């Protein structure tokens, strides 16, 4: 019922509008513009997603292999700070990136002889996307990096008795038997499934 109200009805409305629009307007211009926009959107999203994963994976691995030295114990805090952007509005991040890019713009322009424009370019856009969506990429990579690893068994075996080993094994099995979709849906900041 809720699905019908929240998803199917609006979808039907959109479909009828789209069909009307397609039958009444000139398809030539629409096709030309539409393909370009779709390519732009998909290209931006693919680039941003790849960038976010490329940045998030090293953080997740550093966090997993962090030792107990004074410096490395601060890593979780740093990772939390790095993924704070997801809680901030996109507009605020855009303004922040613009404020950062504006003073740098002149310097970079003169250094590269006018070849590289920093603000209102792909650089700033990708940087904004990275700040905004690092949390998502980081959480899912961190969950996988922490997941069912053999070192967890090893540590529990070395540090505690048999009961602890069985407990760890039971919880690991429970985690691994959890449906995949729930774990993906749980990969949001603040909602850790573990």
């Amino acid at each position, binding site marked *: 019922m809720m699905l019908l109200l929240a998803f199917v009805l609006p979808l039907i409305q*959109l479909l009828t509008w789209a069909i009307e629009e397609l039958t009444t307007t000139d398809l030539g211009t629409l096709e030309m*513009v539409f393909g370009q926009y779709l390519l732009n959107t998909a290209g931006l999203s693919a680039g941003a997603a790849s960038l976010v994963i490329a940045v998030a994976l090293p953080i997740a691995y550093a966090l997993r292999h962090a030792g107990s030295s004074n410096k490395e114990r601060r890593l979780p805090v740093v990772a939390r700070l790095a993924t704070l952007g997801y809680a901030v509005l996109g507009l605020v991040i855009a303004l922040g*990136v613009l404020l950062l890019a504006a003073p740098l713009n002149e310097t970079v322009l003169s250094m590269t002889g006018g070849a590289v424009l920093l603000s209102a370019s792909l650089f*700033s856009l990708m940087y904004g996307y990275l700040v*905004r969506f690092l949390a998502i*990429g980081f*959480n899912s990579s961190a969950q*996988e990096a922490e997941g069912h690893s053999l070192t967890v068994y090893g540590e529990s075996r070395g540090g505690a008795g048999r009961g602890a080993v069985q407990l760890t094994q039971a919880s690991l099995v429970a985690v691994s038997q959890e449906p995949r979709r729930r774990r993906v849906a749980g*990969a949001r900041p603040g909602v850790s499934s573990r």
Partner: protein
Amino acid sequence: MRAGIIAGWLTVFVDTFKELPATIFLRPFGMETLSIWTSMLASESAWQATAIPSLVIVLANTFLTVY
């Protein structure tokens, strides 16, 4: 390991696909995306015309999320 990377990649892809405010402010000149197109049409009260881009966004994201 690989499943986590793919899941994260797809989630970020879906979120950037429909991201509007940051894209409007930071995009290069003349670069339009589907969400910007939709908001432009909506601000001109061309509700019927917004159907096509928004339908594409909805369908692509639904497919990727279910997948």
